[in-house]
């Protein structure tokens, strides 16, 4: 293609061209507006960069090609007949462009999010290096504050939430017998908004004054007063949030309208239930964090007074709006994991999930109750005191549906035929570690206790038990479980087991002692601490380095297996759900013939029981004709 051709076609050349154009537009808007209002000086770099942070990502999304079809349609020009050339990956290069295949998008999500996981993890390593001894050794307090803020933001918005979206993106259309998601182009846009959000967050380190350093919670008025790096966060969250909401809408419509014939709601695998309920949480709650960040952005850049106490602003309002999303967010970060665990345990214990209906109902109960507990993040905030006891009660009640799930998984194991594969090990590790995190959560719900341990390392311990021992363990379980389906190759089982045991041991050695230092008086978000905590901290830091190293085993396994692993069968786990009834990787449009669902998804132990059938006689399963080829040499 000629250079002119490349610059006009969707892709990286055009995306690169879009950046200076976006910059000039932003410059024009700011300078023009300032001229109209008679402001002096006309060129204010804080204002210009704020608009640039919105314009450049949008320009990139246009340049890379997310909006081409819609712009063309909106302009009234006759649409180009779809030739599906933008669907499916025929080489590794296709993964770097806009693609409408949910299997391609799923892998784009997973690889991108793991990149940000590594970035966030490295930041944690620097933090632990600094905390190994009292005093300042490696980073100044402002940098340290920036590190933990970006660490948490990346892990939450650029790893856990979207990696679940990526796994679900890949698996769910296959699981329900659909050829793709309901809105494939929207799906592509959802993905591309993600790296833009992540780049914005990382770029904040280069802002004048350093990265945003107010925590991922960005409380006002600290966040309305700090230097420009904060604006990178407020805008990045918008892109990540928009990505999340669009994906959730896609899941809801897909699950409601595109299930294969015979798949009633009560025959859906629990992963589908989990992502369905998660998507409800996302669409209802995410606009609230968008709102909270818009308040901050407007206070910072347009002189509004939402949090300006001198002008009757209300500082606590920020926390209420923020936590109204951010509490459901923790369920957004866990429910898909619950779905993964149900799939992994039933396949590896060769048993139906115990209490399937209650498992679905408990997901719904968690969604509803999850909206009633937000102020348990504000027990010591100074909010009206009568709200505390009701919030304690609702918070403790949410242990009941969560307990139902844990007990049901235990009952699923009972009298099963247990295969301790790597995904199963991570699922079992999840059950025990998430129980510990839930226990510390119950303790945090009891107000007299939480008055003391709020904002201490006890909370840091709790969140990492539920987010790493909880969510990330389920993410690993899901990646290993569906690795053969996605890549057409088997991962190395010995390396997988090694990864599990190293993670499990060093995870506990890192975060377990944090419960102790927290109750003993060490606050959180501190670059330095009192001498008495020195011994515990050096133990925690050394454990954390080994914990970080354990991830390398996973990375090595993934890369080498994807390139050179033994070819995988269509159904290496002998599972019943529909994704395993097609080749590994699946054909480009998933099903050469739409399956008919005739039974539940977990009918193990019943001779002759099947979940879905192909009514026409079909040819032998072909070798993968799409999906994920190994990375090129």
């Amino acid at each position, binding site marked *: 293609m000629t250079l002119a051709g490349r610059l006009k076609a969707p892709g990286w050349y055009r995306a690169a061209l879009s950046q200076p154009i976006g910059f000039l537009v932003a410059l024009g808007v700011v300078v023009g507006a300032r001229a109209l209002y008679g402001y002096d000086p006309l060129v204010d770099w804080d204002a210009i960069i704020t608009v640039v942070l919105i314009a450049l990502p949008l320009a990139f999304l246009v340049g890379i090609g997310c909006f081409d079809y819609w712009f063309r349609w909106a302009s009234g020009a006759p649409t180009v007949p779809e030739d599906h050339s933008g669907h499916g990956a025929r080489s590794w290069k296709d993964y770097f462009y806009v693609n409408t295949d949910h299997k391609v998008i799923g892998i784009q999500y997973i690889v991108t999010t793991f990149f940000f996981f590594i970035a966030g993890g490295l930041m944690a390593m620097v933090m632990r290096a600094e905390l190994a001894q009292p005093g300042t050794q490696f980073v100044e*307090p402002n940098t340290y*504050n920036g590190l933990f803020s970006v660490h948490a933001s990346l892990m939450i918005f650029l790893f856990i939430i979207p990696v679940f979206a990526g796994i679900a993106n890949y698996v769910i259309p296959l699981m329900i017998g659909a050829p793709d998601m309901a809105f494939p182009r929207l799906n592509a846009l959802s993905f591309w908004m993600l790296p833009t959000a992540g780049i914005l967050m990382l770029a904040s380190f280069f802002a004048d004054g350093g990265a945003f350093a107010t*925590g991922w919670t960005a409380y006002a*008025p*600290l966040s309305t*007063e*700090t230097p420009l790096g904060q604006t990178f966060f407020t805008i990045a969250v918008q892109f990540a949030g928009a990505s999340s909401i669009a994906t959730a809408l896609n899941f809801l419509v897909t699950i409601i309208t595109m299930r294969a014939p015979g798949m009633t709601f009560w025959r859906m695998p629990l992963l589908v239930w989990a992502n369905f309920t998660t998507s409800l949480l996302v669409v209802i709650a995410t606009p609230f964090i968008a709102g909270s960040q818009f308040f901050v952005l407007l206070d910072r850049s347009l002189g509004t007074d939402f949090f300006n*106490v001198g002008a009757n602003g209300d*500082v606590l309002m920020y926390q209420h709006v923020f936590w109204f999303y951010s509490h459901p967010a923790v369920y957004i970060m866990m429910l898909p994991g619950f779905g993964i665990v149900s799939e992994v345990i039933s396949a590896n214990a*060769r048993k*139906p999930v*115990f*209490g*399937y*209906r*209650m498992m679905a109902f408990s997901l719904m109960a968690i969604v509803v109750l999850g909206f009633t507990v937000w102020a348990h993040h504000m027990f*010591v*905030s*100074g909010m009206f005191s009568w709200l505390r*006891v009701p919030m*304690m009660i609702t918070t*403790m*009640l949410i*242990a*009941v549906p969560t*307990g*139902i799930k844990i*007990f049901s998984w*235990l*009952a699923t194991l*009972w*009298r099963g*035929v*247990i*295969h*301790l594969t790597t995904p199963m090990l991570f699922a079992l590790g999840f059950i*025990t570690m998430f*129980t510990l995190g839930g226990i510390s959560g*119950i*303790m945090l*719900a*009891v*107000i*007299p*206790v939480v*008055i*003391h341990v*709020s*904002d201490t390392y006890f909370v840091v311990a709790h969140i990492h038990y539920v987010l790493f021992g909880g969510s990330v363990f389920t993410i690993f379980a899901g990646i290993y479980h569906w690795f053969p389906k996605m890549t057409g190759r088997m991962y190395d089982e010995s390396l997988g087991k090694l990864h599990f045991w190293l993670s499990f041991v060093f995870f506990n050695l890192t975060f377990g002692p944090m419960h*102790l230092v927290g*109750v*003993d008086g060490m*606050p*959180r*978000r*501190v670059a330095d601490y*009192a001498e008495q905590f020195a011994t515990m901290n050096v133990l925690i830091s050394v454990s954390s380095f080994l914990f970080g190293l354990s991830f390398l085993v996973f990375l090595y396994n993934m890369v080498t297996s994807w390139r050179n692993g033994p070819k995988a069968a269509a159904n290496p786990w*002998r599972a019943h759900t529909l994704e395993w009834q097609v080749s590994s990787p699946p054909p480009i449009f998933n099903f050469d013939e739409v399956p008919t669902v005739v039974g539940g998804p977990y009918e193990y*132990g*019943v001779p002759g029981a099947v979940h879905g059938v192909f009514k026409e006689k079909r040819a032998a399963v072909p070798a993968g004709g799409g999906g994920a080829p190994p990375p090129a040499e």
Partner: protein
Amino acid sequence: MVLYSVIATIVGTVLVLVIDWFPTGASTAAGPIDLLYDVLLVPSVVIFVLVMAVVIYCAVKFRAKPGDLGDGAPIHGSTRLEIFWVTVPFIMVTALAVYGWVVLDDIEAKQPNTLIVDVRAQQFAWRFTYPDEGNLKTNQLVLPKDRPVEFRVTTNDVLHSFWVPQFRLKTDTVPGLTTKIRVTPNREGRYDVVCAELCGIGHSTMRQAVRVVPPGEFSAWRAQAKKQQKTVGGETPPEPE
């Protein structure tokens, strides 16, 4: 399995109760709170041991023999079991919530003869005012033993959090609001005032001391501080750490 679980429960319970979790208790709230915490730990150990035991037992007892391609028993559910594990946790959390509520009301109860101390936070230091002592302003927090105190807390700039671990009390400081917290120090000594809400670059070093002294010593300190305030015309200097 049952025997190992019982042993593990006993060992675990002893372990968590023996660990000295909290810093020295120096207020009347510390006793009830520390006890509540211990009470929470006991069912926690039971639940954790139960979950761990079932996982390990199943992984060992029902492990697939090599080459076993069979399925497990097609058990879909048991209504009785489900009712059990909804009702029992519900009762447990309700009981714990009620207990917590009772302790909360107890530690927050209004007391007679309360000493009022205004606390003002700013980046990155604490300032205290004793409004009933002729508006004595000081950087040192000194309190008489066994007298209830009500802290009225606010901030000059951003959110901070007023925390004395030994007292077990904490409240955020909110611009535009005055938050209140009550405590009765009941042990002499020198304790830490720690900022527990990220407030900027100096957050980790924003700590000062609080001293609890016998009532006679408190009066002496107060008189001396007032004199210093008059002569020096400002606040008493901060105590050396």
